[in-house]
């Protein structure tokens, strides 16, 4: 049996099939690789945009100070100066955007203050901490401490309570 390729004809068909397959692959590759791939590295350049496009949930302190400069003044005078607003008040980007639409919530002192100031063995020794139950005797922290300037103490309810509070050992500097 003759033929152009002699007895290799079937192998040529296989080779042609392979070549066609590779061609199809190359065409598909050219068509389907996403736009912007490889511009900055082996990734889609648009991914940088995607990562930047998340909505903000926290406004950042600077945004709060714009309207609440008075609170800022009080904060600067006291020990809570370095603490940013949203550390206690939660994410407030919506509120900063439109104060009437996103209401800011006043956190519950009983839960909030203890989260940082309940004494703990693993907390740095120099950090102000106390056994809240003994120290406060069930009272809310803000009945004696102003949240924004915690050491400027309001007059306690009775002298006895003041003595009781002072009797519980407190750790940390700044007393």
């Amino acid at each position, binding site marked *: 049996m003759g033929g152009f390729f002699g007895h290799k004809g079937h192998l040529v068909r296989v080779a042609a099939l392979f070549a066609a397959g590779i061609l199809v692959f190359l065409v598909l590759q050219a068509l389907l690789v996403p736009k912007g*791939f490889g*511009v900055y590295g082996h990734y889609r350049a648009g991914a940088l945009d995607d990562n930047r496009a998340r909505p*903000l949930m926290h406004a950042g302190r600077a945004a709060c100070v714009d309207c609440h400069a008075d609170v800022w003044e009080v904060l600067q005078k006291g020990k809570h100066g370095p603490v*940013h607003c949203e*550390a206690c008040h939660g994410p407030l980007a919506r509120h900063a955007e439109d104060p009437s639409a996103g209401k800011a919530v006043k956190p519950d002192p009983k839960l909030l203050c203890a989260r940082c100031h309940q004494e703990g*063995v693993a907390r740095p020794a120099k950090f102000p901490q106390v056994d809240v139950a003994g120290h406060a005797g069930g009272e809310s922290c803000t009945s004696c401490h102003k949240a924004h300037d915690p050491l400027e103490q309001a007059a306690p309810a009775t002298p006895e309570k003041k003595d009781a509070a002072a009797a519980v050992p407190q750790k940390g500097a700044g007393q």
Partner: protein
Amino acid sequence: MSDDQTGRREFLARSGTFLLLTGAAGIAWDAVASGEPEKAPNYRSTDHWWAMAIDVEKCIGCGNCVRACKEENDVPREPFYFRTWVERYHVPEGDIERPEVDSPNGGYDGFPEKYRAGDGAKSFFVPKMCNHCAHSPCVQVCPVGATFESPDGVVLVDKTYCLGCRYCVQACPYGCRFIDPRTKTVDKCSLCYHRISKGLTTACCETCPTGARMLGDLKDLKDPIHDFLRTHKVQVLKPQMATGSKTYYNGLDGSVR
């Protein structure tokens, strides 16, 4: 010089210039076609090289960072998915090889007291997060290019491209990656890229009450991180892995994993 030679030189000069300009135009067109990320308001990624400094001696384990991150980045609230978490170490005297470590819900609700004072051990908190490694093993193993290091040093994920093969989760020595069960793609700390590219700080740094976490821009000569790195004894986690971690810890004890 003969006319022929002058003509040829002119031709070569002209075509060389033409090719150069075409090439440059081609590159510029690529940048344009890819969505112009450089044009985000005044933010040029090549001006920045982001890092994070963490001062273990200041961390009080309040969990603000964990909560803020989950809010800011819409992380699933179940206890298996964390972009950042806090660990509590309790190191019995003289036994740095066998510390007791816990991280109840990643520190999201703080840490209930477990230890007594005066038991001879030392205890402290260590915040953990993606280390945004300069030679990241997670980037190396991604089969398709769905995770990468941005030009400004942040390791990011392309959620529309990720296959969910989980190879990068296996390759990260720090355990900072997870699969978001809702999108079935990988997720991890993005250094609040959407915030830092707008001049804000990360959600975790914003809410840290003691300044234990500090975002730093290594390319900004005025950034306080330079001073911090110079004046403190800093370490990275698992230095033997040579990942080029850019999360620098001050006060890292030998027992920290």
